[in-house]
């Protein structure tokens, strides 16, 4: 075997004491397509940020060797200088500039600060030809589809003498034809001697193009597979991706499930910005009394979109479908109406959508149900204090009093405040979107206990999560959402991580 072009050894990285990467080794051969796979949160993106210098040298532990040299990148400029170019999932193009302007952004074809448009144009034309685009270099980015924009990003990378190209989920928002074209392009680049790292969830794509696969799980390398000697089965990859021990990390529940309470029928949602895209494609869903129903799926599957469109149409447009409570059709077209129908939605983004961070715990706790602590629109601060104090004790929110500003709380405690806010609105149906995202294990257990308690009280809980063990540990039933449709449903007894993962990765093929 030749000397690897890239060698990463013992990479460790923490955020505020939380381990994101605990021990990653990665070795990439020159001229190969190397796939990195792993669940959401396995550390793929963090690893690529370490490699590209987003986290500067010294911010992490471990060793990076590129083309035989030790690398200490202080920023993206350093890694780009070496020929390592990363294309992020969110494209970094300026929509209202032309293709040529975007390709040479920060690297303008200029002498003495004066741009030579002819050179830019000609060079761009050559680059576009390489990636198989026939657009004029003067076309605006905003007029191109996502697939073509992805190709522009690659052309931009090629303009910088790329040696190692990193693609982070390049096909996540592409349709099949565009994805195929992109895979073809990767194979073509490989023939030209460019090494490529491909991060993807789609195993069918990976088996098509990858020469080797590194599997990450919980921030560590768990397997390095070589595909050149023989085909690696998807089963093997999936097993490596999810194969972790299930410890006793969830509270014991004794489900007492009643009749159907909450039901959604033929729910259809169009994309907020691109109305021609259908995000949720006519789904049906129901939750029974005292039941916890999980929604599994990858990022971009449409889980949050589904939840928010049901909750007061806060996402999407041209929404159609019906919501029933106890068999009666209800109107949830505004947040106020949804709350009045005793539906609550706990957001996945507590800082962006959940809390008014500058304000206190008490203030945030009562925000969704101010009328309950006021008389004739005048807030009774005493009552507000009692309510907030009550929830602070019940949910074990750690802070000296309820007058602490929420910005100063830890993630877990912030999450509890958001939960308190929605519990105080007295809901019958609770939609929890990633209720434990980014909080530590201890706080997670507390949140799980609260959720179990709610179900025991007879509430309907709909729980969206990217962490499969959490769904398996908590839910009575798990529905798998992929590309806007439910592709599988499992009871608690029959569900396994392998089955869920398989239903996701195989649904794209059919």
């Amino acid at each position: 075997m030749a000397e690897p072009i890239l060698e990463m050894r013992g990479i460790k990285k923490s955020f505020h004491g939380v381990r994101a990467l605990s021990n990653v080794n990665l070795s990439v051969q020159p001229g190969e397509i190397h796939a990195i796979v792993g669940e959401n949160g396995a550390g793929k993106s963090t690893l690529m940020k370490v490699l590209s210098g987003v986290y500067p040298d010294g911010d992490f532990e471990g060793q990076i060797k590129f083309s035989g040299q030790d690398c200490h990148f202080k920023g993206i400029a350093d890694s780009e200088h070496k020929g390592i170019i990363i294309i992020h999932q969110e494209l970094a193009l300026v929509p209202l500039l032309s293709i040529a302007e975007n390709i040479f952004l920060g690297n303008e074809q200029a002498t003495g600060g004066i741009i030579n448009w002819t050179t830019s144009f000609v060079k761009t034309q050559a680059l576009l030809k390489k990636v198989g685009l026939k657009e004029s270099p003067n076309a605006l980015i905003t007029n191109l589809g996502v697939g073509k924009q992805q190709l522009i990003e690659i052309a931009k990378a090629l303009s910088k003498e790329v040696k190692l190209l990193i693609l982070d989920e390049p096909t996540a928002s592409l349709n099949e034809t565009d994805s195929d074209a992109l895979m073809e392009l990767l194979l073509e680049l490989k023939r030209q001697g460019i090494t490529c790292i491909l991060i993807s969830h789609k195993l069918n794509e990976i088996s098509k193009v990858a020469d080797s696969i590194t599997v990450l799980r919980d921030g560590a390398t768990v397997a390095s597979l070589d595909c050149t000697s023989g085909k690696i089965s998807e089963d093997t990859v999936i097993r490596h991706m999810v194969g972790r021990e299930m410890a006793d990390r969830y509270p014991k529940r004794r489900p007492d499930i009643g009749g159907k309470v909450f039901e959604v029928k033929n729910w259809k949602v169009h994309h907020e910005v691109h109305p021609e895209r259908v995000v949720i494609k006519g789904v049906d869903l129901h939750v029974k009394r005292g039941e916890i129903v999980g929604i599994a799926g990858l990022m971009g599957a449409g889980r949050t979109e589904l939840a928010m469109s049901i909750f007061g149409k806060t996402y999407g447009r041209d929404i159609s479908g019906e919501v029933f409570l106890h068999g009666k059709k209800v109107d949830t077209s505004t947040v106020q109406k949804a709350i009045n129908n005793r539906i609550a939605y706990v957001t996945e983004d507590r800082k962006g959508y959940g809390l008014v961070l500058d304000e206190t715990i008490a203030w945030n706790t009562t925000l969704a149900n101010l009328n309950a602590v006021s008389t004739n629109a005048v807030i009774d601060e005493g009552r507000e204090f009692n309510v907030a104090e009550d929830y602070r004790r019940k949910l074990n929110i750690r802070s000296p009093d309820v007058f602490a500003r929420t910005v100063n709380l830890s993630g877990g405690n912030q999450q509890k405040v958001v939960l308190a806010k929605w519990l105080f609105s007295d809901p019958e149906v609770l939609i929890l979107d990633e209720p434990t995202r980014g909080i530590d294990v201890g706080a997670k257990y507390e949140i799980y206990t609260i959720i179990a308690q709610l179900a025991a009280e007879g509430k309907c809980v709909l729980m969206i999560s990217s962490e499969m063990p959490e769904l398996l540990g908590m839910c009575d039933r798990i529905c798998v959402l992929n590309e806007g449709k439910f592709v599988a449903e499992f009871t608690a007894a029959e569900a396994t991580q392998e089955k869920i993962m398989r239903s996701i990765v195989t649904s794209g093929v059919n």
Partner: protein
Amino acid sequence: MVTQTVETDAKEAAGGGSFLKNNLREYGLLLSLVVIMVFFQIETDGTLFQPLNLTNLILQNSYIIVMALGMLLVIVSGHIDLSVGSVSGFVGAVAAVLMVNHGVHFVVATILCLILGGVIGAAQGYWVAFYKIPSFIVTLAGMLVFKGLALAVLEGSSVGPFPDTFQLLSTGFIPDPFHGETLRVTSLVAGILMALVLLVSKVRGRAERVKHGMESEPAILFMVKNLVFASMIAAFSYMLASYKGLPNVLIVMLLLMLIYDFVTSRTTLGRRIYALGGNEKAARLSGIKTERLTFYTFINMGMLSALAGLIFAARLNTATPKAGLGFELDVIAACFIGGASASGGVGKVLGAVIGAFIMGVMNNGMSIMGIGIDYQQVIKGLVLLAAVCVDVYNKKK
């Protein structure tokens, strides 16, 4: 026993220190107003606090303060209104045309003008709230439109004088049945009563909070702050009483201040405006009708601009095409000096009022000292910048 009391005392003192540190902004603002007043009192050889000048100070700043109350809500909700000066000028012009040219009774004209202000606010707020057009642009357009309309309504010339009864809004003083020659007894009594009511309501509010264990302000600070405040009110009303008594417009202003302070700090409406400015997405997801709320704040701003326009017109006793010119700058500056945040969600009514007084006292003091209008503007600009810098610095710490 003895050691125990010492311990709690020490603890309380430490608590007071940290409380003062955390609420530096609030006390700092009041303190700066006092320092500025004392400074000008000395520099102007005592002219600043002469009853005549004090009365003038209030009359000069009343319309700024009235608009600052509305502007505070607009800024807290995360927007800005640049049109308030033009709108107040335009409404003043309409009032003059109605009363002087068409002989409409002043009460009818006042009501019509306030409604007009509300309609203007609605017309601007509509675009901001429902079409998400940046308020900066909408109200910049409004600024031009209403400046032009004021010119058009007045046909380029001044219209006046107003009926005597209307002028009383700005130039009148509360009646004094005792006919005190050197001291207006009613005014003095009213002032002292006001101070007492304030004191009693503050003490009761505190008792309520203490009962629930919600109070964090140390007793000593609370007492000092409110006693200073109450005695300041009493002293000012004594000084005013020794001239012509309390101006009518002061009563209007104080009433509005109390109402707006109450609405912002105690009602669900006020709470929702802060939520809207603090995190619009979270507010919307909590069932707050953010668009309608934004719309209302602009209607409110329009009405207060109209009222300010009337006060200003009554004070000059004539409506001129130049009325209202540049008011928006003083009003916005008052809010920011008073601690409002340009990104929304933060700011207090009393802060804006104190901010307006800081600007007002500086205007007045510098004029008495004979500083030219040129450097007055330079100094005011620097004070605004400094105040906001201190704010940002405090936040970063």
